[in-house]
């Protein structure tokens, strides 16, 4: 994206002030909730510091931990892959799914990163996003606007219009009715689905456990109802021990505004039973086949660069509520990932320096994201460093 295109996009986003209004409301409620959550669970602040140390260690041994996780998973009967690039990941997953299948998907930014849904659809599969916000974005044929609240820019009136049009019946502009309409629509898809695809919030190498945090219950349906379950996970998500993973998960959900999430799924193998003659048989009520695809796509190189801190990101999305520019234009300040941290991910993972340039110069370096970030990631500092890379190349300051 050129500077000019980017500016045009920002101008569009500013029009009418609707995005600013929607994000503004989301921000007020985020701030109120997180303040309350931190008051109720004051240990979170110390836990966040501990998680920062866990991530520092994990990122410095990323490749080794992924290998450890893979070995454990294979022993647990989860088949694993490492995809070096986005297209490799798409191909692996496509070959596991086949063609003409019904696929249900949990929300996964990593899948957005590689354009997975579009790839599977091109191969003649029916793919349904099952997260409410993500489904709305799919119906709009646009891109998510926030890490966790993909439809953060939509009002309930717009949602009602969209759903009424799509479902071919009147859905009133009330949140409860909208949720019901989507549940009714998706229920049948879950039952018919051949494959469920999800992401992961964190993975424990020690036990080969995939950890997923969710509220809607759609992720557990995706990972337990269809006969095949595929998890796509960024290599940076692996931590050494199960105990570490749970700490990471708690800090993630607290800052993601889930105070206490409805569900935390721990998946370490396909469903199995040993009830008859103590013979382990795979494929009981849950899936018979589970696959885990670890995605590199630039992460390994990033982990060895001065920008490695970007990999500590838990994707809680807290920083975005604090970003003044995001508050005006939402995900238009970003590419696959948003805000200042998105500029970094764009530079090293989803795009290149050229794609990241307009985003790097969009950071006000105001520093409020860093105050919010549970990992205290110095995003503004790294955005300035990114500008240096753009302006001066690799030449270090003398």
């Amino acid at each position, binding site marked *: 994206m050129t500077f000019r295109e980017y500016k045009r996009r920002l*101008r569009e986003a500013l029009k009418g002030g609707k995005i600013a209004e929607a994000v503004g409301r989301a921000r007020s409620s985020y701030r109120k909730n997180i303040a309350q959550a931190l008051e109720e669970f004051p240990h979170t602040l110390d836990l966040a510091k501990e998680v920062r140390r866990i991530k520092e260690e994990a990122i410095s041994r990323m490749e080794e931990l992924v290998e450890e996780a893979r070995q454990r998973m294979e022993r647990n009967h989860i088949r694993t892959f490492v995809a070096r690039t986005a297209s490799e990941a798409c191909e692996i997953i496509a070959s596991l799914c086949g063609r003409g299948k019904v696929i249900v998907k949990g929300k996964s930014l990593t899948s957005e990163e590689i354009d997975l849904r579009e790839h599977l659809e091109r191969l003649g599969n029916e793919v349904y996003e099952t997260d409410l916000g993500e489904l709305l974005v799919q119906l709009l044929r646009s891109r998510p606007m926030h890490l966790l609240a993909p439809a953060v820019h939509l009002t309930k009136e717009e949602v009602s219009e969209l759903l009424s049009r799509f479902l071919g019946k009147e859905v009133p502009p009330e949140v409860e009715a909208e949720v019901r309409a989507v549940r009714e629509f998706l229920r049948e898809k879950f039952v018919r689905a051949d494959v469920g695809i999800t992401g992961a919030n964190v993975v424990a190498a020690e036990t080969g456990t995939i950890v997923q945090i969710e509220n809607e219950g759609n992720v557990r349906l995706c990972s337990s109802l269809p006969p095949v379950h595929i998890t796509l996970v960024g290599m940076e998500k692996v931590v050494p021990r199960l105990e570490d993973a749970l700490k990471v998960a708690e800090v993630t959900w607290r800052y993601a505004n889930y105070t206490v999430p409805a569900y935390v799924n721990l998946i370490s193998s396909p469903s199995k039973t040993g009830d008859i003659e103590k013979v382990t048989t795979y494929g009981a009520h849950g899936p018979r086949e589970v696959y885990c695809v670890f995605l590199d796509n630039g992460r390994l190189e990033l982990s060895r660069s001065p920008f490695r801190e970007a990999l500590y990101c838990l994707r809680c999305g807290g920083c975005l509520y604090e970003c003044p520019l995001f508050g005006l234009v939402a995900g238009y300040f970003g590419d696959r990932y948003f805000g200042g941290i998105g500029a970094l991910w764009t530079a090293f993972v989803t795009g290149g*320096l050229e794609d990241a340039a307009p985003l790097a110069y969009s950071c006000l370096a105001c520093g409020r994201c860093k105050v919010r970030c549970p990992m205290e990631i110095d995003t503004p500092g790294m955005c*300035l460093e990114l500008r240096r890379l753009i302006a001066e190349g690799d030449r270090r300051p003398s």
Partner: protein
Amino acid sequence: MVPEALKFLRENILERGDLFGLDRSLWAEGLGLKREGRTLFFAGCGYQFLEPSARFLGLAHRVEGWGIDWEVTWGLWRRLRGIGRLLVPKGRRNPLRDAVEVLRQEGIDVAYLGGREPCCGAPLYFAGFQGDFSARIPKVVEALKVSGAQQVIGMVPSCTYALRELMGGVPFEVIPFVSFLAQKMKLRRRLPRPMKVTYHDPCVLARYLGVIEEPRDILRSVEGVELVEPEASREWATCCGGGGGFEAVFPQVSAHLARQRARELLETGAEVIVTACPGCLLQLQGGVRSLGARVQVLDMGEFLAGAELL
């Protein structure tokens, strides 16, 4: 890939010594500030070029409003030498004069390098020209050492940050104006009538330098001030929209952000908005104006010097 606006600022600093390449000491005319002394007043480009900056950004905003590509315009202007002359400040009114006056009222005499004051290069750093920034450090430090100062009072938060944190240690103490004043202030100033006053935390001052309570202490020491806080304040304060060169690259978005912060500050019901950064000052003045509010936006020095006339 580097925005034209930032290239323009870079060329000015590298080739003409500061942001606009203009005479920067006009504001101090008639003040009789000496060149040498124990305490040096570092005025900074932001304040010294307050007026040209305001005109420049106003123009940028208008050009974008006409749908003309601001990037292209910058590119052309960059080639037109002497454009700066159109921007020569006319008036003498400047928050720096008030700051000096306030210090004098407290019995503190400061030295000022006048036209020899170097640009600290902070805009280079924030624009990503860190190599250029680093290369200029010895020159900047040398120029400041000439005054013989042991203490440098930084007026612009980003200059203060650059001098104190980004130069790998300088042979003098660098202290933000508001921190210095909070320590030294003895006079009890008074407003003619009780007034609600709010303070806008500049990002660099509050979050980069951790200066949060000092300006509030100063304001509370003024009789008649009822200090009111916006919802987002202190380390959570919202940016005015003018950080890191953003205002030059994205004039329209920047104006939106300024308006938004102005709205947050006006919600406090304050009659006066005080801040302590030339960038914030311009942005918030623009924001308040565009909302049609009749509230004064003043820099700390201006507020204190003029307190009795408010």
